[in-house]
């Protein structure tokens, strides 16, 4: 500490011989003024910085609504092959908001997960679980194949080759008045158990489900 600070040994302004000091006063008027000015500046800066920051990161916490989209009549979908259907994920932005979903009827001999009202039809996303490129169902090979980095998936969407870290995502389906409807997206682990939707590239087996938590913006 320099001598400048050491010479003010006393807390009291009157002891320090400051002109006009009150008895028992510890904060000089100069120090009080400095502090008030700094506080006013901080409040002024925070009053625009905090709302702007909240505005920018707000979408992280806002849940995106989803709606049911009609895919087609129930007899359109066989139980041993996929029919591609185009649905709108994000309305209002034209082609960029659309995606292809591969739909088939549930087949009890190969679909071993528990049947319920939301998986009578199997809807598999075309979004690769590696980095999100569009996979294509190749009928002759009975495989989903990704053009970008060579990800390969089997009939159930489970990874059989290439870099993907988990099976292809699925969508909930329901039947209304003889028509199949496609709802919200969900992710599955390698046992095809349901999880909140994760982005591509995020494994959810084992520790992965905690390293890549579900997000408030999109829940199961």
């Amino acid at each position: 500490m320099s001598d400048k600070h050491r010479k003010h040994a006393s807390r009291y302004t009157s002891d320090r011989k400051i002109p006009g000091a009150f008895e028992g006063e510890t904060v000089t008027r100069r120090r009080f003024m400095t502090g008030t000015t700094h506080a006013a500046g901080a409040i002024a800066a925070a009053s625009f910085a905090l709302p702007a920051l909240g505005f920018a990161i707000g979408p992280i916490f806002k849940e995106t609504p989803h709606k049911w989209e009609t895919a087609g009549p129930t007899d359109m979908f066989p139980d041993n092959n996929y029919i591609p259907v185009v649905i709108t994920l994000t309305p209002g932005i034209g082609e960029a908001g659309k995606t292809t979903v591969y739909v088939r009827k549930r087949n009890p001999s190969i679909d071993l997960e528990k049947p319920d009202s939301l998986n009578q039809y199997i809807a598999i996303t075309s979004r690769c679980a590696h980095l999100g490129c569009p996979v294509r169902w190749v009928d002759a090979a009975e495989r989903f194949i990704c053009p970008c980095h060579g990800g390969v998936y089997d009939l159930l969407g489970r990874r059989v080759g290439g870099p993907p870290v988990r099976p292809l995502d699925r969508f909930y389906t329901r039947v209304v008045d003889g028509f199949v409807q496609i709802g919200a997206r969900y992710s599955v682990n390698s046992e095809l158990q349901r999880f909140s939707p994760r982005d591509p590239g995020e494994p959810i087996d084992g520790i992965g489900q905690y390293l890549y938590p579900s997000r408030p913006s999109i829940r199961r």
Partner: protein
Amino acid sequence: MPKLPAPPVPAALKAPPPRPGDGNGKATPLDHAAEAGISVVDWVDERTSLSGAARWMMFRKVPKGTNWFYTLGSATMFAFLSQAVTGVFLAMFYKPDPSGGAYESIRHVTNEVFLGQFVRGMHKWGSSVMVILVFLHMGRTFFFGAYKYPRELNWLIGVVLLILTMVMSFTGYLLPFDQRAYWATIVGVNINGTGPLLGPYLSDFLRGGPEFGAVTLSRFYAIHMMLVPGLIAALIGAHLYLVAKLGTTAPPWLKAEKNPELRKAKA
């Protein structure tokens, strides 16, 4: 009026003193006209003292052995200035509209605007040039040992500038909004999402939601043309200040003078 010191220009460029008998020492209108530029500079300098700062910045001592490798930093800066100027003019035509307007506005610039293809080409290819120059400049600094004391802070600022340049490249790639731009951004955002714990939230921040949506393009556009260029310009200022303040390093192959007498004479 007190006379300011003459600017340090070479003797050949200085005006010759008036010959005896020319106007008998009185200033003619022609003399005033010839001095007009100097008078304006003097007027500003008397009120700002900018010439001192300009001299401090420009007339520095440089070490022996300074060579062409030392121009990579200013080459990078000029690449950035070129990007900034062409970018401002491209922004006059660009529409960040994901339902087709973005692609259409780029097509319009490329095919119909006078010199549009040229200016857009400068911006597009210039971005690669800037990235290459950044890395060459970084390599020069590394291999010449120019990051060592007391220049560590300048290395750190440079690393932040490198990251910001990468952010510019990533956000700018989406703007043409063609198939390549769209899928490259999908893949890029998903790579970013593979960072554990924070990655998924950062992806949501970049997209403005869980899916590529209506606000993604305008977010990228705002980051690309307002947020990051300002940061880069400010950090280039700090980078240059430190270069001028600390001076440049001699190349590593230059040996220090062993003879103490000569060493003193050289210093």
